[in-house]
């Protein structure tokens, strides 16, 4: 494991920042800095899965990752572009304003290498569809924490169908009360109530839709 990955995995914010600076000054390829940061985030994800880490550690590592990216990203412009795993559209469905889980999973997805188009909260089916069309993203992630949100999810899946995109787009639904039953009911391809698990599923989707 690289020192930088380790600093992120240990949630050592100052050390991570210092290492990023040091590497940039030493002329290290920005892209490989990004990779090291991702490696750190992977370790955090693993520790969360093993219950060594809690949600707070996901949040802290996500913030450290964002800070590192704020420094590295501008340097990627013009140079070798970071290759995204996949584009992906994300949002909390119509009628639902819970954004905390969606934001966390958005950060985790970005850290994992996804190009995430986060539409925000209370998103109508047509807006999801428009964004899928505009970006050509092959993955749609919908968040919902309320039971009435299952209807909005279902409607969105229907709208994706009606737009003729259903066979091109993999759909995952997530949120604290989302279960297998819900996933089936709304017609999604996958479901989760766990951020890191959702990221793993999206990685699988990215491979399948490549």
């Amino acid at each position, binding site marked *: 494991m690289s020192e930088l990955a380790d600093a992120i995995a240990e949630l050592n914010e100052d050390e991570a920042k210092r290492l990023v600076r040091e590497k940039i000054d030493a002329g290290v390829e920005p892209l490989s800095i990004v990779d090291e940061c991702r490696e750190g985030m992977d370790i955090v994800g693993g520790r969360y899965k093993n219950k060594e880490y809690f949600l*707070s*550690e996901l*949040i802290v590592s996500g913030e450290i990752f964002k800070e590192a990216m704020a420094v590295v990203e501008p340097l990627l412009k013009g140079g070798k572009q970071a290759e995204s795993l996949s584009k992906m559209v994300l949002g909390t469905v119509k009628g639902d304003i819970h954004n905390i889980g969606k934001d966390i999973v958005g950060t985790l997805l970005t850290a994992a290498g996804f190009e995430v188009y986060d539409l925000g909260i209370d998103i109508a089916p047509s807006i999801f569809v428009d964004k899928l069309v505009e970006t050509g993203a092959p993955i749609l992630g919908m968040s919902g924490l309320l*039971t009435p949100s299952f209807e909005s999810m279902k409607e969105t899946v229907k709208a994706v169908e009606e737009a003729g995109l259903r066979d091109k787009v993999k759909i995952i639904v997530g949120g604290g009360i989302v279960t297998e039953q819900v996933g089936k009911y709304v017609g999604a391809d996958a479901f989760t109530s766990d951020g890191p698990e959702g990221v793993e599923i999206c990685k699988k989707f990215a491979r399948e839709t490549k």
Partner: protein
Amino acid sequence: MIKETMTSKERVEAAIKLEPYDRVPVAPLMDVMFPSRHKGMTVAYGISHWKEGLQAIVDIFDEVGGWDAMILPGYSLALTPKVASGVMASMGTRGYKFPGQDAAVSENSQPQYEERERLTVDNYDEIIKYGWSGFAERNRERYTSFPPEQIIAWAKKQTEHYAREGETWAQKGVPSLCGAIVESPLMFLSTKRSLTSFTMDLHRIPDKVEAVMDALVDDLITDTIEAARLTGIPGVMLVLERGGCFYYPLKIFERFEFPYMKKMVEAFAAEGLITVMHFDQDWTLNLPYLKELPEKICIAELDSTTDIFKAKEILKGHMCIAGDVPASLSAIGTPEDMEAYCKKLIDVVGDGGGFILSSGCTIPANAKFENFKTMIDTAKSYLPAR
């Protein structure tokens, strides 16, 4: 139906004191949303029309043949007539702005939610120096456009409404459990800083956060006791969500949540106030600590994400448990599912006393009436074979 030998009040008191009861008491956490919808009003209408909203709750109560207690008597706020209370309310306990609370929100609008940082790191020093009340008074204009006299008048009116809600139920023989609502310092700061920013504060400047909590907690305690005195209802709801094991490791809980929780509960108990600990999210790993809190004067109110059966094992003989019919069961389950779940709760969690059958958090707006009625009926009719 079970032959009843106790009044609702006696039954609920027995549950809290872990004494025998004739049957498990049932007390949903009821706000105005489900009753409004059931009565054909919009939720927004119910929320902004106090009389009709309260009447809608009373109507549902009568329709199902009543229940044993109101955890909260209605939906007004219990406040002390102080500028700081008004400022806290306008910051929104949970991020809401209630209609009529702020000049910018019209009387008829939906509760508006704002996810923004209502406190910044820069405010921490000022809170440490002046306490919560001092900070609120000094920063009043940031949070509300009302002048001080109007804030105080508004706070008084809220509290009067709250007391009248309590009286409405008392006349029906139904006790209300909480005469005031307060958040733990961790919950208070997390909701006002936002989850992410506050989590970073804990990581970056833990000592300062602790100092802020030390500066907050006494004002929170004093104001809450005062509010409960004004409403005349001898209990407090302590709102907890962010400090549990769903969000944080135990080392955070041990330093930033538990000591304050303990201090608050002990202070309330010393005044003879019961504490309903409103646990949103999963607190399973935190349960053993609750045995260090005063016994037989608190209720652990669980929302269905904490393992209520584990809670029973751990808290048996020490603390009453309330909960935890899942919101999704009320909304999309069948009456049969509901009956089976309530029976299981009564059998296992109700065993030996110390249980109040309740909804996991509030009854959702889209609950099915049949399901709700089944929950109430099951408590009244099901006697476990023991």
